């Protein structure tokens, strides 16, 4: 079928790269950028005006794309790239501290800040933080835009952990985060951001902060674990300009991804990881992703906590019903003891029922139109019904209370909270990545025995 695909000129490079992978020179036409947000007359001018790539009128190119005969130069086999594996230099040439700092920055291996250089000695020391072999593959990520499969080992994660300024005791959390293979930075033009939450005993063991100033720059573990995740993401390849990195304004959260621990000891509710099916004594890392977070500057003096949070949630997109509320323990206690919300899910359900917005506001939100309107088209309820409502009809857009996450963090100096559009994406166990203690290793009597288990059993 003759097809004329159209893209804005900003992504002409993507089209060119994509041809190498699919082996088919699609006849793209390019308009000026952007299309989104432009009024009708401007878009008409885009159509009748020139393609920035060729200086020819876009509409002429579109018609030619459908009618001009295919010629021999459009033979697919001339374009296709074959699979290949790149080489990797394990040990860099010895150099001065200053030169190596500059090298790491210029090679795109850092977040722009100075790093702790990963000498062999430092990496060996870091590896004492886990019982896993240095050459064990932790995971593999696939970069869609460049068709790269990137395998990474325990050693690579340890190198990154050194760079971030972490200590060996932080490594299990960093390995668990890496094992999710979720990047902290997304290949999107929008300002995605992430949050990394730790639950379970390891929080106290490694000195994480879940109390006063938990999100402020004053704690080593919170800072370096979050930073390590972004350095991993960078070295997986997610920040190559206009190849894998497109965020028009970026997001400052990516420096340490709001890495924090839940204040389980001061919370009146069950910890987040227990809600997700883990045991209380398991240590777990959880990833959240979204775009926006509203800090709260007041303590609900004139309106109730719920009324305040409803106002904030109305302003967020309610994409797939996701929200994350980060409550100081004072707020959680008040909600339970003064308002009767015995569990986190009770409160999530209340919010789900009580946040109401006009359906026109919902469907005219860009993210909702791009990602959820197709569900309505496919007949999925309630979206299909919502699509047929008049713009001023009220809906409860957070229709899945289990997607409203509640976490308790804070130092109880003020009953405040944060409201975010973050969705919970994955949780991963940390304990399997720990260093084996001598007691653990010998608990079944096998430590120190040779590999051949027939020795001594004749």
């Amino acid at each position, binding site marked *: *079928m003759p097809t004329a695909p159209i893209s804005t000129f900003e992504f002409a490079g993507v089209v060119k790269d994509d041809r190498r992978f699919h082996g088919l020179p699609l006849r793209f036409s390019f308009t000026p950028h952007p299309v*989104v947000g432009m009024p009708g007359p401007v878009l008409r001018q885009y159509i009748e005006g020139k393609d920035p790539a060729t200086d020819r009128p876009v509409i002429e190119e579109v018609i030619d794309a459908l009618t001009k005969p295919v010629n021999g130069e459009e033979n697919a086999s001339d374009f296709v790239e074959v699979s290949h594996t790149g080489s990797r230099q394990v*040990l*860099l040439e010895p150099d001065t501290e200053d030169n190596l700092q500059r090298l790491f920055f210029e090679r795109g291996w850092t977040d722009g800040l100075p790093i702790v250089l990963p000498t062999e000695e430092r990496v060996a020391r870091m590896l004492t933080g886990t019982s896993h072999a240095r050459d064990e593959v932790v995971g593999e990520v696939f970069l869609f835009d460049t068709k790269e499969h990137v395998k990474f080992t325990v050693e690579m994660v340890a190198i990154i952990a050194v760079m971030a300024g972490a200590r060996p005791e932080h490594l299990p959390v960093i390995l668990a985060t890496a094992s999710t293979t979720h990047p902290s930075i997304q290949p999107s033009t929008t300002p995605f951001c992430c949050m990394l939450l730790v639950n379970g005993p390891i929080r106290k063991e490694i000195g994480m902060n879940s109390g006063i100033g938990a999100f402020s720059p004053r704690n080593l573990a919170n800072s370096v674990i979050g930073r390590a995740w972004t350095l991993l993401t960078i070295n997986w390849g997610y920040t190559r300009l206009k190849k894998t990195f497109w965020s028009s304004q970026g997001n400052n959260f990516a420096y340490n991804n709001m890495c924090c621990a839940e204040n389980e000891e001061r919370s009146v509710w069950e910890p987040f990881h227990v809600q997700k099916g883990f045991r209380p004594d398991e240590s777990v890392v959880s990833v959240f992703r979204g775009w926006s977070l509203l800090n709260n500057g007041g303590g609900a003096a004139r309106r109730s906590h719920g009324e305040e949070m409803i106002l904030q949630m109305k302003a967020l997109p309610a994409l797939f019903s996701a929200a994350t509320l980060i409550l100081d323990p004072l707020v959680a206690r008040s909600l339970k003891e003064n308002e009767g919300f015995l569990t986190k899910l009770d409160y999530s359900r209340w919010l789900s029922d009580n946040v109401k917005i006009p359906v026109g506001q919902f469907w005219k939100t860009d993210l909702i139109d791009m990602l959820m309107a197709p569900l309505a088209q496919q007949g999925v309820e309630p979206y299909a019904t919502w699509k047929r409502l008049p713009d001023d009809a009220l809906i409860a857009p957070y229709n899945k209370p289990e997607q409203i996450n509640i976490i308790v963090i804070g130092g109880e100096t003020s009953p405040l909270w944060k409201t975010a559009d973050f969705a919970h994406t994955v949780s991963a166990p940390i304990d399997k990545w720990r260093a084996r203690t001598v007691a653990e290793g010998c608990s079944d009597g096998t430590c120190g025995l040779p590999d051949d288990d027939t020795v001594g059993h004749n």
Partner: protein
Amino acid sequence: MPTGLLSVLSPESQRTVVPDGEVKHNGTPALSSMAPRLDTLNGKTVYLVDTGFGGSYKFLDQMQEWFAEHMPTVSTVRRRKTGNIFRDDTTDLWKEIKDKGHAAILGVAG
């Protein structure tokens, strides 16, 4: 090693590029060929397919109006791909276009 110099490990991982063609066909590139083109659009049916990116519907509004004004013998049919911007259509849209149309314009990426 001379004093003052440090030897450090590279943070890079092993990368393997695998183009889509090889992924789909176990080593044999899945190369397609370009469909034969129409001799003219006049009298033909052209589907205008909205891929779902912001503003695409407005752009295709303008495209449809342009054809109505300048090439009125071209019949245009509007459709929006039912998969979101990252997913394929979930219905028989492509079959419908092949059965009932002569060509398709897809837009606008970006």
